[in-house]
């Protein structure tokens, strides 16, 4: 078909006519790298011994790319890459701001450390079913969810990480595990379906799926029942993903059943994807929700914090104590979203980073306790301090960090959130933060005292410390604890990134401008 001048004009309005700049390709590397390495592992499925090293190599590359991405976003602002050269809002565009890049970086670090741990932990037989491929695919899904700038594409990434997480949660397939997996699978499938309903209705209202374009069109909608319904559906779906009270019951029922390294990865990454999606939705789609929704989110946040930690206090199974602590942490992040000021969002971002690191570390530490003693009940544990001083110290540091005691990473987000809630006279929220801190200290203090400090009871089996000499098991835990201490002592870089990220969430004009600049830039080039 001959192309006339009118054709060219139409094409110029809808497509970029040159390949994206080489530096922009950095935006898609966090998705491409895990996919490529997962494919390599599948191709090498007979050589089980190679799976671990390939996955670790992939994660190292991924971490390096993510560091590059954070640097690029910090120096150049929001980066947009249009897929297949379709100009937004026609095609799907990846849009990366500080929050996306920071979350993707932490997720890849968690992925790397869990891969090293799994390489030391899993025997060769159990690797045949492609554990490391699932691990990489999960991280690909999580990175995609963090980086995309399109609401339907976000749904697709949710499904990618969901199917990978299904593969991991049934890994091994014991009775307890299948039971936990059923709860996890059905409730998460429902949550993504609610998300899809909300996406469909939002498309019906605005006629677009691009976040930046939605953000431009939403102010034109008349506020009323449809907007409120869609906003509540989004919040319901993501709160369910994030395990906020009263939708949290699936998490402590399932995270302790698969191999501990899977629990650690899930505790670190999956709930935070829900929180990240809430950041995006509240920032771009519903910046001014009806007052009732604000009140509900605030109540949910406070209830999640307090009920999560009360649940942890009541558990006898230390693996489930950690499950409830994940839930409690989600409450603090939701509180930041509910308060909605820049300072509160900054607190929520720092809390999310802290929680990813500390919860992963706690799950790994609990797994080491279980490996050494073959016990996981507080009533049966004891005497570890005498034989495993290093693990005891690491666990104590993590206990302090998760409770928010200085000088570890948990202190800073709590201070920021406390100041933010006092600044808007939300005294109840401030009280809830302090109460949660005290209750977490009691919970973790008791876990530490009973597991490590208490002498071993008469007739308890010998503690086997051979596992604790394995470098591949200890190194990831030590690295995570070092990160916690590092953030606690030198919080300035994280504060700077989180501050920039929070400013971008409360005032998304740069995000929107970056997406449409891509279109404008091409228009100028054509003339």
């Amino acid at each position, binding site marked *: 078909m001959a192309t006339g001048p009118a054709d060219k004009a139409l094409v110029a309005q809808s497509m970029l006519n040159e390949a994206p700049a080489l530096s922009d390709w950095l935006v898609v590397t966090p998705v491409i790298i895990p996919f490529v390495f997962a494919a390599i592992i599948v191709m090498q499925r007979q050589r089980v011994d190679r799976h671990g090293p390939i996955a670790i190599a992939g994660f190292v590359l991924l971490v390096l790319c993510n560091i590059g991405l954070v640097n690029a976003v910090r120096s150049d602002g929001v980066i947009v890459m249009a897929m297949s050269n379709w100009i937004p809002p026609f095609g799907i565009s990846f849009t990366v701001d500080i929050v996306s890049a920071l979350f993707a970086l932490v997720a890849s670090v968690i992925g790397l450390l869990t891969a090293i741990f799994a390489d030391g932990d899993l025997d060769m037989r159990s690797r045949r079913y492609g554990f490391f491929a699932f691990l990489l695919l999960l991280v690909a899904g999580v990175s995609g969810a963090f980086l995309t700038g399109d609401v339907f594409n976000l749904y697709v990434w949710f499904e990618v990480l969901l199917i990978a997480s299904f593969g991991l949660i049934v890994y091994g397939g014991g009775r307890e595990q*299948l039971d936990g997996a059923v709860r996890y699978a059905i409730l998460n499938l429902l949550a993504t379906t609610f998300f899809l309903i909300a996406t469909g209705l939002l498309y019906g209202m605005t006629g677009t799926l691009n976040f930046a374009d939605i953000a431009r069109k939403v102010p034109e909608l008349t506020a009323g029942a449809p907007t409120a319904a869609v906003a509540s559906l989004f919040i319901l779906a993501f709160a369910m993903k994030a395990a906020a009270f009263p939708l949290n019951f699936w998490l402590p029922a399932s995270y302790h059943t698969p191999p501990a390294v899977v629990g650690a990865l899930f505790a670190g990454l999956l709930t935070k994807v829900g929180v990240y999606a809430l950041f995006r939705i509240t920032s771009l789609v519903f910046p001014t929700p009806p007052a009732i929704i604000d009140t509900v989110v605030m109540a949910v946040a406070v209830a999640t914090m307090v009920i999560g930690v009360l649940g942890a206090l009541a558990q006898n199974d230390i693996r489930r104590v950690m499950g409830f602590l994940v839930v409690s942490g989600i409450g603090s992040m939701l509180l930041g979203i509910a308060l909605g000021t820049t300072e509160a969002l900054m607190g929520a971002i720092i809390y999310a980073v802290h929680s990813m690191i500390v919860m992963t570390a706690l799950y790994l530490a609990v797994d080491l306790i279980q490996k050494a003693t073959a016990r996981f009940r507080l009533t049966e544990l004891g005497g570890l301090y005498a034989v495993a001083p290093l693990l005891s110290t690491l666990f104590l540091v993590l206990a302090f960090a998760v409770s928010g005691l200085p000088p570890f990473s948990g202190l800073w987000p709590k201070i920021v959130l406390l100041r933010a809630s006092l600044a808007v006279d939300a005294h109840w929220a401030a009280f809830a933060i302090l109460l949660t801190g005290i209750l977490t200290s009691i919970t973790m203090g008791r876990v530490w005292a009973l597991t490590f400090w208490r002498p071993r009871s008469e007739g308890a089996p010998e503690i086997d410390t051979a596992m604790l000499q394995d470098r591949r098991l200890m190194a990831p835990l030590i690295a995570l604890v070092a990160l916690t201490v590092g953030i606690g002592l030198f919080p300035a870089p994280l504060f700077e990134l989180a501050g920039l990220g929070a400013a971008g969430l409360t005032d998304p004009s740069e995000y929107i401008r970056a997406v449409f600049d891509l279109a404008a830039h091409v228009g100028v080039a054509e003339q």
Partner: protein
Amino acid sequence: MEVALAILVGCFFALSIYLILSLHTIRILLGIAILTNAVNMSIFTAGRLTREVPPIVPDGSYVPLEATANPLPQALILTAIVISFSLFAFVLVLVYRAYQELGTDATTEMVEAEPPHEPATPRGY
């Protein structure tokens, strides 16, 4: 037409929520299957309905002369159907395996992951 479809979608949602609230995993699964169909139809309806107009571009013009149906909701639904079908297949196998292992499909009796009679936490040493 939108009104009729909206009512139908509403009926589907009501039925699926009724099924999901029941205590047996197989009924929950049937509920999920209906729910995904309800969602697909609601996306279709939200994308506005158009009577069948062939999307043909005549010689000499660059867009179809008449308004044709919006292809985007159809693309979205196609994606959603594929995804929900594969996830449904997975969950179906998972529930069947759980039924084989646990010997029950009643959610009240599936208590392996959360044993009901855990000993209380110690109050001191």
